[in-house]
């Protein structure tokens, strides 16, 4: 049993396992690229095929490429996006749904979380890295779920590729936004933006007050999110500039605790801003409301109360340490 347990823990920790998942994504994206390139009816198929081909190379070969080559590929990807090479489409409701959909449609969708939590649980039991286990489980679940869907729905492998391609292209370059923003955070750190922000905010916040610093951090997250309409963008900037240097580092607080509160403080900003149009303005048209701000009018009250709850929860935890 212990042998088996340590085997699982070691397998999860091996970098090659995660690299295999990235190689699989690379192959998948190349499959999309070939499929797009072969679609003769499609106007402007070459830039789109090139986009997914480059992204596939970054995923499959990323660990082998010199860093500056990978950087150049990222710039090329963004260049194709800027030139309008990858069309972004609004997601159409999935067509051709069978008249009486059975519960079988849930199987593949539920396979993914089942595998994620199963592998994370195994990792926990075997004393391995649980977070890593969850990530490996997500990848394994994705692969397993295709098998489940093929068996349950009687599809061909080709249909799986087509379905994945449609879903991936629907969202298009937006898929990469979180990853790009995390990279931007690192670039900002390397350029010293964090220290600059920390100095500026540190001049206002009273020294030695963890709660004061946390208020500045949560406020920064909410305001920047409201401005940019995106909590992920705010997170990479405000956390490296305020959250880490002023809240986590000087007081030795748990980084995970402070960071997740920071992210949800940003979500309070998302609830209160017309800049998050997908969430706050799109429903107005969708539900046929007369007042364009009907949704925000409701949400900002809860967001304000919830933002305060962030400060309260943080204070309770810090004071009872």
């Amino acid at each position, binding site marked *: 049993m212990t042998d088996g347990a340590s085997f699982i823990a070691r397998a999860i920790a091996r970098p090659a396992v*995660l690299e295999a998942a990235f190689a699989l*994504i690379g192959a998948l994206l190349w499959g999309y690229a070939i499929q797009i390139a072969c679609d003769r009816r499609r106007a402007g198929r070459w830039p789109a095929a090139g986009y997914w081909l480059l992204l596939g190379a*970054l995923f499959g070969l990323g*660990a082998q490429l010199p*860093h*500056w*080559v*990978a*950087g*150049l*590929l*990222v*710039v090329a990807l963004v260049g194709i996006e*800027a030139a309008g090479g990858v069309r972004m489409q609004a997601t159409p409701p999935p067509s051709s*749904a*069978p008249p009486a*959909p*059975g519960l079988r*449609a849930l199987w*593949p*969708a539920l396979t993914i979380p089942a595998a994620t939590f199963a592998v994370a649980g195994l990792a926990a039991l075997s004393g391995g890295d*649980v977070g890593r286990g*969850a*990530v490996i*489980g*997500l990848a394994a679940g994705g692969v397993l779920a295709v098998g*489940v*869907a*093929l068996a349950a*729905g009687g599809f061909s492998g080709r*249909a*799986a590729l087509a*379905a994945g391609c449609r*879903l991936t292209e629907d969202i298009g370059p937006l898929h990469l936004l*979180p*990853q*790009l*923003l*995390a*990279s931007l*955070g690192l*670039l900002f750190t*390397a350029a*010293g933006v*964090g220290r600059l*922000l920390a100095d500026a905010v540190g001049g206002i916040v009273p020294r030695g007050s963890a709660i004061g610093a946390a208020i500045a951090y949560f406020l920064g997250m909410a305001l920047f999110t409201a401005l*940019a309409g995106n909590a*992920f*963008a705010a997170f990479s900037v405000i956390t490296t500039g305020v959250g880490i240097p002023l809240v986590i580092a000087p007081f030795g607080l748990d980084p*995970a605790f402070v960071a997740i509160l920071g992210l949800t403080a940003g979500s309070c900003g*998302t609830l209160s801003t017309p800049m998050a149009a997908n969430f706050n303005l*799109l*429903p107005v048209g969708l*539900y*046929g*409301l007369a007042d364009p701000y009907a949704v925000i009018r*409701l949400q900002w*009250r*809860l967001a304000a109360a919830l933002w305060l709850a962030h400060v309260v*929860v943080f204070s309770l935890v810090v004071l009872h340490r």
Partner: protein
Amino acid sequence: MGAWWEWSAWKLLGVVVLAVGLARRWPTGPVVLSAGLVTAGLAGMPLVGGEARAGILDTLGKAFVENRVITLYLLTLPAIGLAERMGLQAVMARLMGRLTSVSLAWVLIGFQAARIAMGALGLRLQGHVAFGRPIVAPMAGAALRAPSPVREAQAKAAVAAAENYGNFFGQNLFPASAGCLLVAGVMKGAGYPTDVVKLSLYAIPMVVISLGLAAIQFARLERRLQRASAQREPTAGDRADD
């Protein structure tokens, strides 16, 4: 502090580019990249680094490759695509329709709880399109004792709010969600590695509090709409004030 053109604060121009670009809804990739280029360029980073100093392209490429895990869910899209062809949305909609309840507040809070559960399972679905509009909004309208266009609009706006509350805070409960992975990526890059499972556990208090606060808000909304129906028709100018 030297002359004005030597202020180190010029580096913050990249942050301005990021905020303005995303707010104006320019294409996201170019906005993020130009923000990085502006800031790194103003900070005097070389394009390709050497032994002494990291370069812009090196830093960007290294960060992008190290953060590939954030976009790992691309591997799940073929299966989700097939499930949608099998009628996933319709099945979920049917299950959602079983939230049979006469009270408006219970419909809303049930919807929010259902969306939190989906988020905890990592099911990324467009709630407004898939559930809010076709199922829950009509249910909310039907739960009104004395329907009127104004009251129906307020009930539907609350459906949209319930979707956003459930979606935003529920998705952090899934350890392999883009949000948790982004937080872990940024924290690791800054030298404070965090575990995604721990992140999802620490997200629980805010989920519970958001659900509680929403329950209060929805109960008050229901009381106000029912009271108004007993007295008079609210005018179109009435806001959602309590």
